[in-house]
């Protein structure tokens, strides 16, 4: 339930301040300071081919292995830097704070740990910005925060970005990347965010507006079984793992080894579940082209 407790924190006073904040973050671009697999050390070993890569070079190459094209995971900030035109991003929804509604054991400490580790409040960043000059509403699920799982705040922020797209008649882009599905710590409140976001997308669909869903590694469970699968156009980043049930659960259930290439982007393309598999370096270009074509709609019968 919506609780409007007027808290004492007033960190996010104006939208303008957030603009400046995102500019500050921009400056870090290309300096190899990303979190997750790649640490502050100078070198990174490729998970796929074992190649030792100089971090600076890896960052310049958009975290794609120079040897084998393996796509390292991006965090939400790196993803925005990759896709959004420079200095055009305004973040919103930061005034929502996660609580522990079920008083679930150890939830607060888990949250704190991930907030410190990622510098994020929650597993999603939402806002508006431009892609190739096209204004869009955008949400990025960050897999580094509690496995990119959906809870009350993530569901609410995603719903609000859908509503913003609806109200301001903007194309909507959601970049999914979360293996955690609906977050267990908030029980049914998390599960119902799947219904909430899907219902909001029904309204956007009724209004005839564009929603591009981009699936990145990993997209599973409550995220794949809600907004991630509901795009007018669904794009999967190359070699991402995408599915409903996790491979371990499936293996346990059927008591058989899983075929190679199971639940990859390419598997999803082959089975008709995504429109296109796109490499990281081409991702922005493909989005711009879709937005370009889409911006021409309605001319035929004018």
């Amino acid at each position, binding site marked *: *339930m*919506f*609780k*409007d*407790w*007027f*808290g004492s*924190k*007033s*960190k*996010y*006073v*104006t*939208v303008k301040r957030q603009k400046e904040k995102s500019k500050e973050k921009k400056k870090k671009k290309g300096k190899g300071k990303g979190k997750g697999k790649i640490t502050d050390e100078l070198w990174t070993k490729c998970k796929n081919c074992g190649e030792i890569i100089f971090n600076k070079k890896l960052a310049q190459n958009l975290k794609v292995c120079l040897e084998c094209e393996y796509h390292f995971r991006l965090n939400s900030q790196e993803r925005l830097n990759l896709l959004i035109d420079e200095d055009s991003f305004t973040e919103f929804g930061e*005034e929502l*704070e996660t*609580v522990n*509604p079920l008083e679930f054991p*150890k939830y607060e400490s888990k949250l704190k740990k991930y907030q410190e580790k990622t510098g994020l409040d929650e597993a999603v960043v939402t806002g508006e910005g431009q892609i190739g000059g096209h204004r869009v509403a955008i949400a990025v699920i960050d897999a580094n925060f509690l496995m990119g799982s959906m809870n009350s*705040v993530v*569901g*609410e922020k995603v*719903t609000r970005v859908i509503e913003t797209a609806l109200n301001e008649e903007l194309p909507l882009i959601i970049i999914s990347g979360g293996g955690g*599905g*609906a*977050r*267990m710590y908030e*029980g*049914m*409140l998390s*599960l*119902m*965010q*799947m*219904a*909430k976001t*899907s*219902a909001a997308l*029904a*309204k956007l*669909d*009724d209004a005839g507006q564009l929603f591009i869903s981009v699936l990145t590694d990993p997209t599973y*469970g*409550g995220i*794949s*079984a809600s*907004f*991630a*699968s*509901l795009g007018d156009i669904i794009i999967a980043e190359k070699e991402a793992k995408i*599915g*409903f*049930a*996790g491979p371990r659960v*499936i293996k346990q*259930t*059927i008591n058989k080894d*899983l075929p190679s290439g*199971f639940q990859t982007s390419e598997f999803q393309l082959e*089975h008709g579940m995504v429109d296109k598999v796109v490499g990281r370096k081409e991702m922005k270009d493909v989005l711009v082209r879709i937005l370009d074509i889409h911006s021409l709609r309605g001319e035929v019968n004018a």
Partner: protein
Amino acid sequence: MPKDHLEFEKPLIELEDKIKELKQFMQEKDIDLTDEIERLKEKSERVKQEVYSELEPWQILKLARHAERPTTLDYINLICDDFIELHGDRNYGDDRALIGGIGKIGDQPLTIVGHQKGKSTKDNINRNFGMAHPEGYRKALRLMKQAEKFNRPILALINTPGAYPGIEAEERGQAEAIAKNMMEMARLKVPIIIIVTGEGGSGGALGIGVGDKIMMLEYTYYSVCSPEACAAILWKDASEAKTAAEALKLTAKDLLELGIVDEIINEPLGGAHKAFKESAELLKEAILTNLQEIQSFSISEMLEKRYDKFRQIGEYIEHSRIEVNDEQQDEVVNE
């Protein structure tokens, strides 16, 4: 006598056995034991009241999974004056774990969809233990869209451990099937009543779970994941499932308090599996009462209420942007 009874049902079953024994003894030996039998019957009722008035989440979960609980088809047969099962998703096949069809209660036509569990092991293999594949969800959607076309209200009966996690289910788009159903159910222009009759297993339940009213039978659960899975992931120990069952707040009572469920439908003392007819009667009454209420709204009111119902789910603290008055803030936003 049930072959498959639960730990906490044992004292009850012992008492019931004793009563039977005495009755038989009385007949065989021609001795009057009426008083003794009456005394035991009273005791049995008392024990029953005690046991069922303070069930723990874990025990409720056991009842929800009880092999002898009425299935979707049991309820349909007891509630409906007529029902015709309709098969297939028109694309791939017919899922026996998620059934559907058209029927009537009195003069009230209904489209009914629901997970179907089996009665025996063999039957359960045939029904895939009530775990649907994508074609099950797509069949349900086909029938629900048909219901919209013919202006028939929809009843969805949920009873599944979850959507099936298998290779073929993934190949055919389990995630898309569930997501699509939620999106479409949010905007179908006919009343939708959802009732959890046994297990409400996560996304597999939610795939037919969006509607105007969500009700749960008294001894059922609805959860983001099974307590066993939750325990294995969070405590690295599946035997902590009892702890997880409590932490997840998955009982009807918990979910009514959280504002996720609208109503709890009482079960006869001892659980639905002890009295099919009585349970079905209670279910029917809840369906008709709620249907009447939903039908009192215009379609647009109904859809608005349905949207708001899901829109308001979620708990968080929203910090106001104080220090900036509305006018100033508007200026900043409109820059």
